[in-house]
C-alpha cells in the first residue's frame, strides 16, 4: 500500500501522540473532521482529548501552544494554510522564537504550515513563507520534499526543544507516494544529494526539488549531468553539502517557489559566494516566483512559479556562461 506525503504527516503525528503523552494537536477543524487536508484524520478517535479544535484565532492558537510548551507539553499546531500564519506572526516570532534565549526555558512547539501553490488556489492559499520565519533567530524551519522526509523530519521536529516551522507542500500531499515509511533517515539540518551530476548544481527545496529533478532528467538527454541538492532544512542551511556540490560542478542555480526579493535562495547564494567564491566558475543564479502576488488562473500560476521548463532554461543559460 503506497504511502502519500500526507499519510506520512498523519502517521508521524500518530506515532508522536502514541509515544509521548506530552504531545497534542491544536488547530482549526483538526479533531473529528480530521483537518482541511485530512492530515489529522482519525487521530481524534485514537487519542481522545489530544486533538483539539480551536476557534479561528491564529494568534491565540500559537500563543496557547507556547504556554503549553512552557508548562512541559509538546504541542503541534496545524495552520489551515501557511498564508494564515501571518495572523500568528507576533506569537511565532516575538514569543516563541525569543523564549529560550530570553528565559532559558525551551519552547518546543511544532507549527505545521500547509504551504506552496496548487492550481487555482490564488494569492491567499498558495504562499511559501519559509524565508520569513528563517529570518528570525530562535526558529528552525524545515521544508521536506519527500514522503520519507515528511515523516522523519516531522517526528524529529516534535522532539526538538525549539519552535519548528514545518513547511509541508500542499501539492505533494497526494501527488507524492512512497512504498513505505522510512526506518532510517537523515537528521534535520542535513541536505541531501537528490541526483548526482558534474556540470551544474541546482539547489532546491520542497516541491521545487521535483521540478529540478525533472529538469535534470530532461537535460540528461542533451548530455548534461545536473546535480540536484535537496536542502530539506531552510534553517539551518547545510552550507557544507552545498559547497561540496558546487566544488564538484562550479556552477550554481538556486530555485525557490517563494517570492524573489531576498529569502532562502538569496541566502544560499550569499553563503556560496562568501565561503566558496573560489569554487564558482560562473555567476551563481537563482530562480524564484515572479514578484507579484500568486495568481489564481492556472495559466498565470504555472508561469508565476518556477516550473521544470523554466529551471531547465535557466540551467542551460548558466551552462552557456
Amino acid at each position, binding site marked *: 500500500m503506497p504511502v502519500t506525503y500526507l499519510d506520512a504527516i498523519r502517521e508521524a503525528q500518530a506515532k508522536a501522540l502514541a509515544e509521548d503523552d506530552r504531545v497534542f494537536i491544536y488547530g482549526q477543524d483538526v479533531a473529528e473532521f480530521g483537518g482541511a487536508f485530512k492530515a489529522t484524520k482519525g487521530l481524534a478517535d485514537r487519542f481522545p482529548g489530544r486533538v483539539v479544535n480551536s476557534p479561528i484565532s491564529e494568534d*491565540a492558537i500559537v500563543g496557547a501552544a507556547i*504556554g503549553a510548551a512552557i*508548562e512541559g507539553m509538546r504541542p503541534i499546531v496545524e495552520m489551515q494554510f501557511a498564508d494564515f500564519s501571518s495572523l500568528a506572526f507576533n506569537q511565532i516570532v516575538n514569543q516563541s522564537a525569543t523564549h529560550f534565549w*530570553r528565559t532559558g526555558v525551551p519552547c518546543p512547539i511544532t507549527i505545521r504550515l500547509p504551504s506552496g501553490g496548487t492550481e487555482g488556489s490564488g494569492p491567499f492559499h498558495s504562499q511559501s513563507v519559509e524565508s520569513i520565519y528563517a529570518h528570525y533567530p530562535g526558529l528552525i524551519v524545515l521544508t521536506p520534499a519527500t514522503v520519507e522526509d515528511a515523516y522523519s523530519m516531522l517526528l524529529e521536529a516534535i522532539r526538538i526543544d525549539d519552535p519548528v516551522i514545518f513547511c509541508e507542500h500542499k501539492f505533494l500531499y497526494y501527488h507524492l507516494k512512497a512504498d513505505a515509511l522510512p526506518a532510517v533517515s537523515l537528521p534535520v539540518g542535513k541536505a541531501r544529494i537528490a541526483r548526482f551530476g558534474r556540470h551544474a548544481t541546482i539547489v532546491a527545496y520542497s516541491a521545487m526539488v521535483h521540478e529540478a529533478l525533472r529538469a535534470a532528467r530532461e537535460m540528461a538527454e542533451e548530455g548534461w549531468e545536473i546535480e540536484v541538492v535537496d536542502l530539506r532544512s531552510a534553517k539551518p542551511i547545510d552550507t557544507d553539502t552545498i559547497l561540496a556540490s558546487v566544488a564538484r560542478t562550479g556552477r550554481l542555480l538556486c530555485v525557490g517557489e517563494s517570492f524573489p526579493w531576498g529569502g532562502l535562495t538569496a541566502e544560499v547564494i550569499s553563503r556560496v559566494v562568501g565561503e566558496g567564491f573560489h569554487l564558482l566558475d560562473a555567476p551563481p543564479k537563482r530562480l524564484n516566483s515572479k514578484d507579484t502576488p500568486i495568481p489564481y488562473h492556472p495559466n498565470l500560476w504555472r508561469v508565476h512559479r518556477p516550473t521544470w521548463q523554466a529551471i531547465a532554461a535557466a540551467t542551460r543559460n548558466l551552462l552557456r556562461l
Partner: protein
Amino acid sequence: MSQSLPQSTLEAAGSPPAGTDRSVEAYRWMVLARVFEDKIAALYRAGKIVGGVYLGRGQEAFSASLGMQLDRARGDVFCGLIRDQAGRMAFGEPLIDSARTYLGSAEGPMRGRDGNIHRGRPSKGMPAMISHLGAMIPVVNGMLMALRHRKAQGVAGGVTIGDGGTSTGAFHEALNQAAVEKLPLVLAVANNQYAYSTPVSEQFACDDLADRAAGYGVRGYSIDGTDLDACLSAFTEAIARARAGEGPQMVVGKLLRLAGHGEHDDARYIPESKRSEPHGGDCLALARAKILAEGRAGAEAVAEIEKSAQERVEEAVARAQSEPAPNPYRESWHALATKHLSEGTTEV
C-alpha cells in the same frame, strides 16, 4: 452586564471570608512594590538604568490582590504586565529578580538579554511578558491547558492587562479561546484611564469594560481598583469560581495611573482634577488609612512594614548593582536550545 454578588455567594463558592489579616498582608506587598519602584525611578533619573522604567503606582492594591491569592505550590500561574510589581512579588517573584533585571545584572533571570518589566520565571508559573499587548493571555491559556492535560485539580491562572490592551485582536482571540475551552483564567483588567496618552474615551465606546464579559460568555466584575478590600473580595470570588470549573473570570478595576506611561513621560496630559474624581485616589494611602482606622494593624506594625520594605529594597538594589554586567565575549550567541542546529554568529 457586570455582576456584583452578595457575600453569601462568595462563601458558597468555597472561599475563606475576607479577613483583616489579608489586607495587612496585601499592604505589605503594596508597600514593597511602591518603595522598590520609587527607588528604581530614582536610579533611572540618576542614569543607572538604561531602557525604560514603568511604574505600577496606583495599581498596587489591584495587582497584589490577584497575585497574592494565587499559589504556584498548587499549580497556579500568574503573568504580570508592566504595572504588576506588587502582584508579581505577591505571587512569588523574588525582589532580587526585579532589581537584577532593571539593573542589567548577569545574575538575574534575564541575564541582560531582556530588561525591566520583561522578566519572568516561566518554569515557576511566571511567563516573561513580551511587549505586544494581549499576547500573554493565550500563553496563560496554554499553560492552563497543559495543567488540565496533566489532570491538575483546582488550579487557576491569573493574567493582567490594561484598558488599552483590551483593544487588541490578541485580547479578543484569547478571551474567546479561554471561554471556549472553559479555562480557569482570571483576567484582571486595570482600567487606569489612559493608554500612554490616550484617554479611555478614545479607546473604547462601552460604558464599562466588564460589560464585554457577557459577550464572551465570561463572568465579569466591575470594582473600585483603589479599594483594597474590594479588590481582595473580587479576586477571592473570581479565583474560587475559576478553580471550581466555572470558566474564565474577568475583573475590571477602575483606578488612575499615578505616574507617566514610563518614567520618561511626565503625563502632563492627565489633568490634576482626575485625582479628586472617583477612582482617582492612591490605593496605598487609602489602604493604610483604613488599616490604621479600623485597627487591623497598629501604627507600629505599619511603620515596621514600611521600614522593612525600605531595608529589603536597599539591600536588593545594592546587591544587583554590585554584580557583574553581562560580558559580550562570554555570551552564548545562540538562540536555540538545540545547539547543534544553531547557525551561530556570523563572524565579521
